[in-house]
């Protein structure tokens, strides 16, 4: 009898741990999240993430730069690894900024502080996509692409023109969707929500005693959490009312996953977790804070996984009838697959897929003539392998 009761309790506890209800553990009843992500001290907002907003804007200009054939590799490299004062962007504020995208790519404390080897390899991938866009694709901008030859290909029915390498890959898509993992996801899940970062130095003591960062209205710990928030909502005009169409990166694709009825509610769950976690910092309740971090890790990882499967399945459907449309989907899928290595299984220090597992997927996709001769079965196998590590099915993700 005791055994039965115990197992029922375990099931019950499991169920509760899956729900995002925030009343399942002791000690957090004193944390009350505000209606929106709005926190103040003495009448002034304590929320700040301008650096994240800046990097999202830089990434937007850089990705747009992939389609300007007059751009040299040096011009694009300078946008990626901007230095303060250089006129790399059309926006003067971005030019003045001392922030850049490259230094924060594959740069989280948890994953890369003691793994600069992988970090360097990942940065080298992004560098190579820039270089190859300039070297391979720009010279063939007006040529019709064929298997083994870079060029342009128009989607059927008079659709958009796609600019691809010899294997059918759009480097701009690889770069943009890869950045969703290497910059946004990695910085949020593995850096700013990391205990190592939130509790660094005297952060806990300072937060407990209301000691503010020098010259600021927030504590260091509050600010770290806000910086995580900023990589998802930093381009929103009003982060208290997110539109989820504010950028071309994680924000946009959270919106896309939210738009799939199978995943409706995920956007609110993520927003609520950010809100409650931030309120927990104000309330000095670090258990509740860390629980919210785990929720965010699981759900943002799920966004990456769903979109990877979605694009592999979308591309599969039009491989023979509309190659340009298929290659575009698969190029987006390539980027989301690449991003899987930056995901984070909750309550662990591990991604859903390791770098070597991701590299194996990429190698498979790029075998021989790449997308020109990838088999539909291959796309199914990869999609199924991805879905198997998450709590969703290929069917749920694919439309």
């Amino acid at each position, binding site marked *: 009898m005791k055994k039965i*009761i115990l197992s*029922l309790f375990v*099931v019950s506890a499991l*169920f509760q741990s899956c729900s995002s209800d925030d009343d399942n553990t002791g000690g957090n009843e004193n944390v009350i999240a505000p209606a929106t992500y709005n926190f103040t001290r003495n009448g002034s907002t304590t929320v700040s993430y301008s650096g994240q907003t800046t990097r999202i804007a830089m990434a937007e200009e850089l990705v747009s730069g992939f389609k300007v054939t007059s751009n040299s590799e040096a011009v694009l490299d300078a946008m990626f690894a901007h230095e303060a004062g250089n006129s790399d962007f059309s926006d003067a504020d971005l030019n003045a900024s001392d922030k850049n995208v490259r230094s924060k790519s594959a740069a989280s404390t948890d994953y890369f502080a003691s793994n600069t080897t992988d970090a360097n390899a990942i940065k080298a991938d992004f560098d190579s996509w820039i270089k190859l866009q300039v070297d391979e694709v720009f010279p063939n901008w007006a040529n019709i692409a064929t298997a083994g030859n870079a060029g342009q290909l128009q989607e*059927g*029915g008079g659709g958009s023109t796609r600019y691809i390498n010899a294997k059918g890959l759009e480097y701009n898509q690889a770069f943009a969707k890869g950045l969703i993992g290497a910059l946004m996801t990695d910085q949020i899940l593995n850096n700013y929500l990391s205990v190592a970062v939130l509790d660094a130095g005297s952060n806990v003591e300072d937060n407990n005693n209301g000691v503010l960062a020098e010259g600021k209205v927030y504590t260091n710990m509050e600010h770290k959490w806000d910086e995580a928030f900023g990589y998802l909502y930093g381009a929103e005009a009003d982060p208290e009312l997110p539109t989820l169409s504010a950028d071309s990166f994680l924000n946009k694709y959270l919106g896309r996953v939210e738009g799939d009825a199978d995943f409706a509610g995920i956007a609110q769950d993520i927003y609520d977790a950010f809100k409650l976690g931030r309120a927990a910092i104000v309330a000095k309740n670090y258990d509740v804070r860390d629980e919210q971090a785990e929720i965010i890790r699981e759900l943002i990882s799920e966004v990456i996984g769903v979109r990877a499967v979605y694009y592999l399945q*979308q591309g599969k459907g039009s491989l023979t*009838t509309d190659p340009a449309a298929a290659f575009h989907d698969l190029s987006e899928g390539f980027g989301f697959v690449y991003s899987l290595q930056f995901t984070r299984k909750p309550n662990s220090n591990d991604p859903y897929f390791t770098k070597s597992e991701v590299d194996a997927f990429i190698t498979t996709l790029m075998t021989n003539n790449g997308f020109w001769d990838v088999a539909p079965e291959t796309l199914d196998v990869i999609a199924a392998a991805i879905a198997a590590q998450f709590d969703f099915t290929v069917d749920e993700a694919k439309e």
Partner: protein
Amino acid sequence: MFTLRKVFWSVFVICCMVACSSSDDNPGGGNNGDGYNRGALLINMADNIIIPAFQDLDAKLEALKSSKNTFIAAPNQVNLGEVRTAWLEAYKVWQYVEMFNIGKAEAITYAFQMNVYPTSTQDIEANVASGSYDLEHPNNNDAVGFPALDYMLFGVDVDDAAILTKYADAKYATYLSDLVDQMKSLTSIVLSDWNTTYRDEFVNSTDNTATSALNKFTNDYVFYFEKGLRANKIGIPAGNFSATPLPEKVEGLYSDVYSKTLSLEALKAAEQLFQGEAYLTNAKGESFKTYLEFLKREDLVSTLNTRFVEADAKLQVLNDSFYDQVNTDNTKMTQAYDALQKIVVLLKVDMLQAFNISVDYVDADGD
């Protein structure tokens, strides 16, 4: 501790989890379990509507080919008039087949090679100039078909005299000829497939699965109504999907005065298919309408009938030239769009739900 209440809730939760697991197995197979004879509907569609319409289009394109040959042999005003007339007659019949994007038509992306507009005059002129082109390549989807002929016959120069002069150049004559021959060839391929193998495959595919003929055919119909008819002909030029109206995106831009004619034909074709009216005789057979009646959805049939009449009326009041209509009184265009949109909702939501058919297409990603 382990209170009785907690145990109760645990059991309750488990029950809920079991109850929530969806059972989507659908007994009944061939008739979808609702007792309706789906095969009879497919037979009426294939034998009395689809195949006769393709036969007529094939004949009209044969006539176009003949007029075209006469014209390029003797490019004069009379022959230009003949080829234009033949083009319009074929274009009108096209409105009866564009919705049948299934079987061979789907496999060879037939519709993409027949009626993509706006056509790319840049691509057409480049093809003419080079004399070297693959008309089937997706990059040429917007340089072939009826819209490309619209440009070649009406817009390739400023007036008829100048157009005739163009055809003294063998490159233009060759491109015109290749376009027409390709359209005829593609249509023959699709028709032949219906006549030889696909008809039987089609009428026997009555299961309710994503790949069965009735599900695909019904989805194709609804998709066509939403995209090919509502959006392409009316919504896009009227600016319903953009910041400002885009009158240069109308169907039949260069001939200018046939946009309304073509749209009216398209709406008529869609309604006749819904009613199950034979292409040649207008005799009525099994159709979406009779299927709905079988399901006791006379209410939906009645509403749809009303909405078809209303949409027709909204199209009737438009200028022959949609380009002019958008520029002079775009409100009438958006009113026509709204009337068509009401039908889209009834077809896509109410009718598909009644048939227990899932929508198999999603709106494009848009990036």
